């Protein structure tokens, strides 16, 4: 134990007394986190330049641009479509929006707004493009709502009118029915009219003939005959009229019936229209324009960029500091003249390995303690996850330190070892979500990348810091790290002596 402490003490003294190492390794990461923390402590995008081109701007296109300007996007109107697109290529603009000539709301108009983006700046492009499309979508929705409200209004008005006129149709239908039944009565009565001789006129004629036999009052009889003649004439006319009525009534009745059925049809149609209009359950304009709404809900409270970046940022710092620090510590010890004296001392190799590991972990943990202390000041709610964070950091740091130690044992100079550590870190970071989403990789590679220490570590920290979950939720990733740690310990134990001997053999031949 005394020996272990002595070696750790020695390592610290050497690191601190080497000014460049102390500055770069000890204070560099803290400075980096401070700078990144300050720079990204916002949830907005600043200084996003958007180029726009339209052969002819109008009120609608200007209103879209105005909406973007309200969100701190810097809009520059270009003279041509080409210059707008070239602006994206040269980096003058982050996006280019091509608005069609006379953007209007009509069936004939082409209202496609084209958005050009530099795909090489993937993360930024995704963020801004979706923001721009949202903004244009907002304007489009406004217009849709306006158009739909007219259609819905007309529909409501039509329904109201139909409902109003349905009473009239009913009255007409009733009148028609009464008219038809009246016609039937008239027809019956007309049909029942008897203008024959057997009737009163015949009786009247018979009585007149009897009267002629009884009286010689010719004058009276002549007058009676004239009356009879007039009467006969009138009856004949009535007969004719009755026949005419009898002939007309069926066609009238037919028409009345036909009209009645039309009225019924009209009534039915209007009722159907009304019921159809009523059957339209959704008549709310907003619902009609966007029947399905998507609303993004953050699973955590709204945070600034630095909050989301924090786990990845910590991971990057942990990874690079651990890899570089441990590889440099190992290589410096290995190429140190004093290394030989260590080797020939009655001290086991495992003590030096343990001391190197402990020195590095103490430094990295110390740095992270400062970072987390600052983070706790900003986000006091993180204090509940401190124990989980501490355990995770210890595990993550251990794995990267051991990997860095292997790098140190493999390489034979500080320069190559540093290059090796940086390259390794870059590869691990490249095959993670930090630069390119993992989902863009082929499935076969994704399966391998799942075992990437950086990915596993990042996931653990994200689970704890952003989602405030426990270590249990990250068990698969923890197992991955534990397997790595075990493998690294075996490798270090194997290469520790070989590495030093190989280095000395090389030195022997280059002497």
């Amino acid at each position: 134990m005394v020996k272990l402490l002595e070696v750790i003490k020695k390592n610290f003294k050497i690191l601190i007394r080497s000014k460049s190492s102390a500055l770069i390794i000890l204070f560099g990461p803290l400075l980096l986190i401070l700078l990144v923390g300050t720079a990204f402590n916002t949830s907005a995008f600043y200084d996003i330049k958007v180029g726009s081109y339209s052969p002819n701007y109008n009120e609608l296109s200007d209103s879209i641009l105005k909406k973007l300007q309200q969100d701190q996007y810097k809009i520059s109107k270009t003279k041509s479509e080409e210059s707008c697109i070239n602006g994206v290529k040269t980096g003058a603009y982050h996006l280019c929006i091509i608005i069609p000539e006379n953007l209007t709301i009509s069936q004939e108009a082409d209202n496609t707004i084209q958005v050009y983006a530099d795909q090489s700046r993937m993360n930024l492009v995704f963020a801004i493009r979706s923001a721009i499309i949202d903004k244009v979508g907002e304007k489009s929705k406004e217009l849709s709502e306006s158009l739909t409200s007219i259609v819905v209004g007309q529909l409501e008005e039509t329904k109201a009118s139909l409902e109003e006129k349905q009473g009239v149709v009913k009255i007409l239908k009733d009148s028609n029915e009464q008219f038809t039944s009246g016609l039937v009565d008239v027809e019956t009565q007309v049909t029942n009219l008897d203008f024959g001789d057997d009737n009163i006129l015949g009786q009247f004629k018979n009585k007149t003939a009897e009267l002629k036999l009884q009286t010689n009052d010719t004058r009276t009889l002549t007058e009676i005959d004239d009356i009879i003649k007039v009467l006969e004439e009138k009856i004949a006319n009535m007969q004719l009229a009755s026949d005419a009525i009898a002939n007309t009534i069926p066609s009238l009745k037919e028409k009345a019936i036909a009209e009645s059925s039309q009225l019924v049809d009209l009534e039915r149609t209007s009722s159907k229209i009304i019921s159809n209009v009523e059957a339209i359950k959704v008549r709310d304009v907003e619902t009609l324009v966007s029947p399905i709404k998507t609303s993004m809900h953050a699973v955590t409270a709204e945070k600034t960029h630095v909050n989301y970046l924090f786990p990845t940022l910590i991971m990057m710092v942990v990874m690079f500091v651990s890899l570089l620090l441990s590889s440099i510590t190992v290589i410096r010890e290995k190429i140190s003249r004093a290394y030989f004296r260590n080797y020939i001392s009655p001290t086991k190799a495992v003590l030096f390995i343990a001391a190197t590991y402990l020195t590095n972990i103490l430094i990295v943990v110390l740095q992270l303690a400062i970072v987390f202390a600052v983070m706790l000041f900003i986000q006091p709610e993180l204090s509940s996850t401190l124990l989980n964070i501490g355990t995770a950091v210890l595990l993550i740091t251990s794995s990267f330190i051991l990997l860095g130690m292997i790098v140190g044992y493999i390489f034979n100079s500080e320069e190559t070892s540093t290059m090796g550590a940086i390259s390794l870190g870059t590869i691990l970071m490249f095959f993670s979500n930090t630069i390119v989403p993992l989902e863009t990789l082929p499935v076969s590679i994704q399966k391998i990348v799942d075992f990437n220490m950086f990915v596993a570590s990042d996931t653990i920290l994200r689970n704890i810091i952003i989602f405030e979950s426990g270590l249990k939720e990250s068990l698969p990733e923890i197992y991955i790290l534990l397997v790595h740690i075990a493998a690294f310990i075996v490798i270090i134990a194997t290469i520790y002596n070989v590495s030093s001997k190989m280095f000395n053999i090389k030195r022997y031949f280059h002497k």
Partner: protein
Amino acid sequence: MPAQIEVKNISKSFGKHEVLKDINLEIPAKKIFGIIGPSGCGKTTLLKTMIGFWEPDSGEVKYETRNLKEHSNYIRQIVGFATQENCVYPKLTVRENLEYFGTLSNVPRSTLKSNIDKVIRFVRLEDSSDELAENLSGGMQRRLDIACSLIHKPRILILDEPTEDLDPLLRKDVLALIKRINYDDTTVVMTSHLLHEAEQLCDMIAILHNGRLLKCGTPEELRKSFSKEDEIHLITLKRKYSDLIKKIKSKDVKKIENAGNRLIIRTSDSEGTLSKILSAIKSSDDKIVQIDVRKPSLTEIFESLVKKSGEAPRGH
């Protein structure tokens, strides 16, 4: 007396490069044992194999009858080792280096401080004890390196080229230090390519050439085994030697060389030749300025042995 260190049939190769070939050495206790040879002859490899840093391809090393491989911890406890490269941490002070290596060598905390003070005094670094090692001069760094080797009071001190890269004054300093270490009954095994240095300092010398042990013994034994002749170096006032050469010629005088201002006479009877020289000078009007009787130097012995071996030194 049994040898304190036994090196038996040690061979060591790096790839196809055979560095040590069947080396056998017996190093007695409390002596200064020198391993000499030109650069690249395998001296450092031999020492590093002796301490266990390199594992020999064949053979074994024993310390006080204990096998190195089986008792490496014990042996590392009784051996101190100082390389030619100053194995100290430049960013630690003299005291911190000693404290660190003392702790690694299992020096108890209770005695560590007093050990450090003693060693610092011993190597005369009292005024620089709180200086960073990197700020020390070359000679001081070498003394610190030796101090680190002595911090656990080893019975054997192995020094690899202890005077390498030092100026003559510092070299003298270090040689004196080695003598003092040996004076305390510490066995010293040292290598050097400076043959005259080893000749002055060592009780026993092993001559190594291209990984082979050419000869081993005391300097006197080596000289004797090499040659039974002595050299007489003579300088006279007039520095005219033609008459003198004629007068001293005999069957014992093997070779006379007129080296400009001095005459070098190789003879198998140094006493007889010397009396002839003195009487010849006396009878002339010349005077003796300087006269020495010398055995052949280690350098000459080495050169002769190398010639005999028929191998050119590696790297030459």
